């Protein structure tokens, strides 16, 4: 059976050269960067080089602006809470887009319980932040604006330079989550006007266990992990040197191969969406069309009349690894908040699948996925009462309404006695 990995948003295979570079730091160069002897000084050198490699990937002025954390979640927590606490006396208001990653959203919710307030700026149906609403959301008490570069679910590329200009005009620090863009789209932290930027090398063929946080030298940030004075006192804890070294190599290769990798996945992205659209009736692309508004590696679809977990499981049984934002997949039984924020009908959110391409995927992979997925959809629709009811005219399609029958949501509410989400 062919195996096709289409979940590069979750993890990517480590580059062999990164693995090789990491190897001696497990067994030979095991020193702690805080130690003052040869063993410590040697890894300090490695740490400095790794900072330079990350700085180069995102156009930071100096490697001193690069901090290493354990992953993207920690970076987001540090960025949101660290800036909020550092500016507490100035004000206790935060502004975020409605479609930030859960690590940002949940950090904000944590602060709200401690007396901060937050304005969530709406996005349009394609997931783009509404700049007017952003401008209006900023108050004299605002101490941080957080807007992602590329949406982790639907791939929308935010007008981040415009967002940066709004923040610069208001004098508010901007935190840009680049977790879904770093390594795939060019990033220039200075042109973005960002005070903080986070990204994770495991999204671009580096190891897990390390996250990167860029902090402009004038941005105020307090530590949220207390201990030693690692990372300029802003992130206590022994550095994960092997991962940091591997991440440096991954960043260097990503910078070098960025345009060819992006062009490759963009070609596959178009082939994938065109293929699915041709082979699967009643399917919808969530987020912008492939092109300048969408990350080149992301396809987010909703297939009507069937649920996402079943699709995911059957894909997996056919060797295809994908993700889903359906409520059945989430431990909280809620649909992805991104799909809710773009106003997607609940029935379509339930049928959601997220496919993220990588540099090693091929056209043959994509063709196999299209062909296999069409069969999976047929099988699940054959089991679905909704498909049957659609065919009998009891319910209507959301994607291509025929004007016959009630909506899925009305139907679901009628049979469950409760409105769907």
């Amino acid at each position, binding site marked *: 059976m062919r195996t096709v990995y289409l979940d590069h948003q979750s993890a990517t295979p480590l580059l062999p050269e990164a693995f090789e570079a990491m190897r001696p730091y497990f067994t030979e160069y095991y020193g702690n960067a805080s130690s003052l002897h040869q063993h410590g000084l040697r890894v300090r050198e490695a740490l400095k080089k790794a900072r330079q490699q990350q700085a180069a990937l995102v156009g930071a002025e100096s490697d001193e602006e690069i901090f290493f954390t354990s992953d993207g979640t920690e970076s987001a927590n540090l960025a949101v809470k660290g800036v909020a606490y550092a500016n507490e006396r100035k004000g206790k208001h935060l502004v975020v887009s409605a479609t930030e990653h859960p690590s940002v959203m949940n950090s904000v919710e944590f602060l709200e319980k401690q007396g901060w307030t937050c304005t969530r700026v709406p996005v349009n149906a394609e997931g783009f932040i509404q700049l007017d609403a952003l401008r209006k959301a900023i108050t004299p008490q605002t101490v941080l604006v957080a807007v992602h570069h590329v949406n982790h679910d639907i791939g929308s590329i935010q007008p981040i330079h415009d967002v940066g200009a709004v923040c610069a005009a208001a004098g508010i620090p901007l935190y840009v989550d680049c977790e879904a863009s770093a390594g795939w789209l060019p990033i220039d932290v200075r042109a973005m006007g960002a005070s903080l930027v986070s990204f994770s090398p495991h999204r671009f063929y580096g190891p897990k266990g390390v996250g990167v946080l860029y902090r402009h030298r004038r941005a105020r940030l307090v530590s949220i992990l207390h201990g030693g004075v690692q990372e300029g006192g802003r992130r206590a804890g022994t550095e994960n040197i092997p991962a940091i070294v591997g991440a440096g190599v991954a960043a260097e290769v990503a910078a070098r191969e960025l345009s060819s990798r992006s062009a490759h996945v963009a070609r596959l992205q178009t082939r994938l969406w065109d293929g699915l659209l041709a082979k699967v009736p009643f399917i919808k692309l969530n987020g912008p069309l492939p092109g300048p508004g969408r990350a080149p590696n992301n396809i987010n679809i909703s297939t009507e009349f069937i649920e996402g*977990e079943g699709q995911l499981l059957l894909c997996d049984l056919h060797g295809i690894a994908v993700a889903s934002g359906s409520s059945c997949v989430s431990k909280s039984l809620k649909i992805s908040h991104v799909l809710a924020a773009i106003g997607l009908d609940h029935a379509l959110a339930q049928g959601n699948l997220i496919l993220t391409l990588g540099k090693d995927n091929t056209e043959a992979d994509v063709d196999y996925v299209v062909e296999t997925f069409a069969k999976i959809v047929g099988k699940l629709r054959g089991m679905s*009462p909704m498909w049957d009811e659609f065919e009998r005219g009891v319910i209507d399609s959301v994607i291509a309404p025929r004007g016959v029958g009630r909506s899925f949501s009305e139907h679901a509410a009628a049979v*469950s006695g409760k409105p769907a989400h």
Partner: protein
Amino acid sequence: MSDTYTLYNSTVMDHFMNPRNMGDLKDADGVGEVGAAACGDIMKISLKIREGRIEDARFKTFGCGSAIASSSMATELIKGRTIEEAMSFSNQEVVNALGGLPPVKIHCSVLAEEALKAALEDYVKRHPEAVAKPESVPA
């Protein structure tokens, strides 16, 4: 296949991949369709009932793997039972027969119980005489 990992145990996976009694029943005597308030999924069970016993059962499910497996197992379990026995059917029986479900997926088996009971109610509505107590039946 020994190095294949599965989200659910092998019984659940089997019922998900090879569901039993999937489909509709022509001339069903009772049909129940219910939705899960928790996640928004929908399950439908159709019954063929003869002489107070469930002769045949079919399901259709818009839902997760565990919901599909639960409906498959529930229809297997209830075939041959009397209406009275089926009325006291509980989702726990489905969970046990499936060898357990993850805690967050228990509600999918509840959906199967509810769909079955809705189908029985539908039958009783159509055939009130079927559940009339013997003593209340005029001699």
